[in-house]
């Protein structure tokens, strides 16, 4: 692929535990208006549209029916990927690289607050013959993985709690975040067990919000935008589809995706070449597991780095300055979009109190949640 692609417009509603004053269409429209306005384009001037969504999160059997109007995509080439926002963004970059499209709008949103039976929906993703029939909460999968990950790497529950403390504190500085708080390690450790060693405060709370970006090919980006953010590399991978078949000591999907994204972006030493990272922290241990898979920490050292402040704002590799899913709220397929939003703010110098000085290159990463082993990585930069 040789066509360079940039984000030239971004819009988000911010993220909050509930959003009762807006329908899902109005929520998405609000984000889309901002994105198009910033890009200086009318949706008629957008060549194609992508939504990342899953039917049962919306409460429709065919949610694709309900995507066009609020994106301005009526009678236009629009499609759904049942995938995370960063995968959708990658598809947008690929579409531009076919030579047939110059501008693509990518959208994802969450109205998780509208699901009365979210536990049922999550359990409905489990294998219907072998796993769902055990009738356990889907989060047991995270409990299984967390124990093995900690056991194999030597990272500790306290270090996982340190992730929570850091991210919720970061969220206090983020006006788009819904879960900022000042907590202690002990607050996390003493919170109610969900599926040991996973505890209540180790898990990000579901949230609502919408995000849209406008992607453009290089010559369009340079013409329209004074501060384009370039997608230097991206990839997504799935490890073993069947969860009983996975090596739980690592996030293989993130390792494989990072390898490819780094090659595309010309990154040889992630810790040096990248200034900050927004990684998936749907569960606290996932941030640690992802840091190791992405090459920011050696096996077993991610917890130590967190504890000693290396991943805090002002540390060597700030991680989840946004607050992450734990601090902002977990927005499912939109969670990767929240991370892209943070990276764009940081790279444009618009991150306010949590601004990383001189940030030039950032990494965003997502995971599709239990019971999947699918995730994506993208490298964003304010330099071409």
């Amino acid at each position, binding site marked *: 692929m040789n066509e360079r692609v940039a984000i030239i417009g971004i819009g988000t509603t911010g993220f909050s535990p509930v959003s009762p004053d807006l*329908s899902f269409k*109005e929520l998405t429209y609000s984000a889309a208006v901002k994105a198009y306005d910033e890009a200086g384009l009318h949706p008629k001037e957008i060549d194609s549209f992508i939504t990342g969504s899953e039917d049962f999160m919306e409460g429709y059997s065919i949610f694709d029916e309900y995507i066009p109007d609020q994106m301005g995509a009526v009678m236009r080439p629009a499609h759904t990927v049942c995938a995370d926002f960063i995968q959708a963004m990658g598809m947008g970059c690929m579409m531009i690289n076919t030579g047939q499209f110059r501008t693509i709008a990518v959208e994802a949103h969450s109205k998780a607050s509208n699901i*009365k039976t979210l536990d049922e929906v999550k*359990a409905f993703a489990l294998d219907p013959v072998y796993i769902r029939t055990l009738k356990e909460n889907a989060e047991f999968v995270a409990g299984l993985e967390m124990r093995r990950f900690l056991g194999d790497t030597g990272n500790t529950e306290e270090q996982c709690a340190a992730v929570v403390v850091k991210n919720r504190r970061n969220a206090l500085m983020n006006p788009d975040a819904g879960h900022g708080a000042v907590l202690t390690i002990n607050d996390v450790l003493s919170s109610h067990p969900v599926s040991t060693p996973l505890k209540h405060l180790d898990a990000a709370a579901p949230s609502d919000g919408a995000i849209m970006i406008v992607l453009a090919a290089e010559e369009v980006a340079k013409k329209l935008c004074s501060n384009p953010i370039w997608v230097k590399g991206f990839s997504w991978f799935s490890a073993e589809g069947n969860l009983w078949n996975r090596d739980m000591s690592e996030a293989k999907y993130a390792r494989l995706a990072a390898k490819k994204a780094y090659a595309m972006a010309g990154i040889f030493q992630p810790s040096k070449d990248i200034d900050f990272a927004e990684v998936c922290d749907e569960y606290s241990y996932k941030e640690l597991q992802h840091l190791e898979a992405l090459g920011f920490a050696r096996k077993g050292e991610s917890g130590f780095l967190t504890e000693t402040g290396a991943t805090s704002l002002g540390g060597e590799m700030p991680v989840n300055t946004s607050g992450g899913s734990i601090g902002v709220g977990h927005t499912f397929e939109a969670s990767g979009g929240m991370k892209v939003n943070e990276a764009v703010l940081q790279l444009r110098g618009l991150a306010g109190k949590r601004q990383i000085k001189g940030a030039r290159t950032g990494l965003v990463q997502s995971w599709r949640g239990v019971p999947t082993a699918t995730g994506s990585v993208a490298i964003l930069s304010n330099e071409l």
Partner: protein
Amino acid sequence: MTIDKVPVKGLSSQEYEKALKVTWQPDLQYAWDNGIAIGKYLEALKDGKILGARCEECGRIMLPARSFCELCWRPTDEYLPVKDTGVVNTFSICNVNWDASRLKPEEPRHLPAVIEIDGASAGMGILHILGNVDPKDIKIGMKVKAKWKPEKEREGCITDILYFEPV
């Protein structure tokens, strides 16, 4: 290479009965936020009105009420009631329930129709059902009027209109 053999045999009803299986009935419940426009639309139904929204740029009066014009890409300018009469755009006489079970002979047929509502822009229809009419007499182009539930029984739902009947 011609494809002349394909895998997978399929099970007869008897074989299916014998195969090992597991059943599951997920409890998938939602409470969808109405938001601005649909909130108003439902409230208007409770008042015995069908609410549209107007966009000054294209001049369309749209149904159901919308907070933004998806074509002009701007907020709509005004919410306004349209009439509760209209014209049958198309219809069916349906003998099956939503779950594919069949209506009993003595049950009345379901009569879904797209009704273009008077006062909205041309072609703006809504899905509803017809009533108080012999199915044989239904025609495309037929004028119909909403039969509302008694005011006290309305709850802010599309079923506050019981059906549309010939004028």
